[in-house]
């Protein structure tokens, strides 16, 4: 059963030049117990999708969707307080920069204890509750692999190393026993060993607790090591989505192929110091979005038809939107 089902999510932002579609018909389905990766470069709207899911967008932006449901409940039509309740209980977000998203004036212990929901406390008397909160917090901190819980709970966010902070954020996300964890670029700027620890932790949480994870990142190496399913975004459009293995074996969209080619680790036959293949240009800004397929100006296979937005096509469970996908050459 799908947990989160988003169909044709469109977000319009009011700029000086008029309303601009920051997200254009995004489709995203997250099933239970699945690690879903959302890949895209900066400015492709990954973080905006995360914010749209949890409802943290400014009111003046227009969000429309054909369908945006959380386990059958429609998220867009429900009242703000109801939505808040759903998100409090079922969805946790690990934000991009752990140090900036924690309160600098409170110790980490205070912050995690504050988050423990009352229904998890079993003791009847109020004076026992503080101790119980602490117990739950310490348990979680141990679970994410921080050994010295005392030091961690007593310190302020600035006193802690970045990767420990990230683990602590995961512990905080687990406090409310959610069904879905959204990890927004959790491995940014980390070295390999710390990164692989965080990834292992997330996949373990996924296996042990049957949690779904929406993993937002642009680090393909990290993603391909753990995700089951991948959606590629470019400039607010879903470009391709499908099973990780299929996508890596045979990407259909030129952009996905370019992303895969840009990581030298994937290509063992590549001689050292040879030029990497890359797309020309950079991501366009919101003020200067091209019409039709937004990859158009950078795409090596672009033709006349690409000024029309390509419809979503499907090969088995593999969705892509391109007028001239890569597998057409081989015919």
């Amino acid at each position: 059963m799908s947990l989160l089902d988003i169909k044709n999510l469109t977000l319009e932002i009011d700029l000086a030049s008029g309303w601009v579609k920051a997200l254009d018909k995004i489709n995203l389905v997250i099933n239970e117990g699945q690690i879903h990766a959302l890949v895209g470069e900066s400015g492709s709207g990954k973080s905006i999708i995360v914010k749209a899911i949890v409802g943290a967008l400014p009111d003046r932006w227009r969000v429309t969707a054909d369908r945006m449901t959380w386990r059958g409940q429609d998220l867009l039509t429900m009242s703000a307080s109801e939505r808040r309740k759903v998100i409090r209980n079922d969805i946790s977000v690990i934000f991009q920069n752990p140090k900036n998203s924690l309160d600098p004036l409170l110790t980490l212990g205070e912050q995690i204890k504050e988050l423990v929901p009352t229904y998890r406390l079993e003791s009847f008397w109020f004076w026992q509750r503080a101790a119980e909160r602490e117990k739950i917090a310490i348990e979680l901190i141990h679970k994410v692999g921080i050994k010295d819980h005392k030091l961690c709970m007593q310190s302020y966010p600035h006193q802690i190393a970045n990767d420990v902070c990230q683990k602590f954020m995961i512990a905080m996300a687990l406090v409310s026993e959610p069904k879905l964890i959204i990890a927004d670029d959790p491995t940014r700027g980390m070295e390999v060993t710390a990164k692989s620890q965080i990834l292992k932790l997330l996949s373990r949480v996924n296996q042990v607790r049957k949690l779904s994870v929406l993993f937002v990142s642009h680090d393909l190496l990290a993603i391909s090591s753990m995700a089951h399913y991948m959606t590629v975004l470019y400039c607010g459009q879903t470009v391709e989505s499908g099973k990780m293995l299929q996508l890596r074996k045979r990407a259909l969209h030129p952009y996905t192929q370019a992303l895969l080619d840009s990581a030298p680790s994937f290509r063992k036959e590549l001689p050292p110091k040879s030029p990497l293949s890359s797309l020309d240009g950079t991501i366009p800004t919101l003020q200067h979005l091209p019409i039709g397929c937004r990859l158009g100006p950078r795409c090596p296979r672009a033709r006349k038809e690409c000024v029309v937005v390509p419809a979503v096509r499907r090969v088995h469970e593999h969705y892509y939107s391109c007028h001239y996908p890569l597998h057409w050459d081989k015919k």
Partner: protein
Amino acid sequence: MTDLINVENLTFVNRRKKARLFSSAKNFELGPINFSLKAGETLAIVGANGSGKSLLAKLLVGLEKPASGHISLNGDVLTKFNQRQRCFNVRMIFQNSNESLNPGITLGGILDEPLRLNTDLNLLQRAAKIEQTLQQVGLMPEHQFFYRHMLSDGQRQRVALARALILNPQVLVADEPFAALDPSVRSQIVNLLMNIQRDLGLGFIFISHNLGIVRHISDKIIVMKGGKIIEAGKTEVIFNWPKEEYTQKLVHTHQALINRQVT
């Protein structure tokens, strides 16, 4: 062939913070560090956070003063008396290219500064040099009238590179030049750096966490931990036969990340 840059027994002790009576905080000590680099070679510095990688880069360009040891360029020891030579020949690309560019002046102004301070070129010659360097890194001459906020990440990185290249240096030191870049832009910058290195015969020293790129473009690797070099050698050797425990862990995790397939 003599070494382009040669570092011998370089050490550094952080003396700024006064140790209080009861504080257990120890001063950070770097070194001793030894390595050498030939023209046209690429050296990668790998290590955990807080292992002194950035500090080593700063020592190389002269932003920090070493406690002992010396750095020699083409056989000449760099001291405060030949600061000018160092300014010309060892240039740095900073970690955060976005914040290392002055938001208040145009790119032309940013690129003009090193020329004005270090050379005797007149206005016209400087303008010509700026245009030429901008084109060299794949930007247009019109970009000199732009401000920082008008550019994308990749373009900013190109400007940082242009600022480093404008004095025709022999050594380029870069502190995480690819970390903030997106994959497709990152390959562009990697290609650009490799092309420029091939054309100009630069020695290139860079710090990176991305072992895939390190393996791809570097000739030699230094692995640092806790301020010490724990392993150094050719890229192929380090990746295939790592000796130290920490290096083994690093390489194996990297390999595991590549090979791990989800079924």
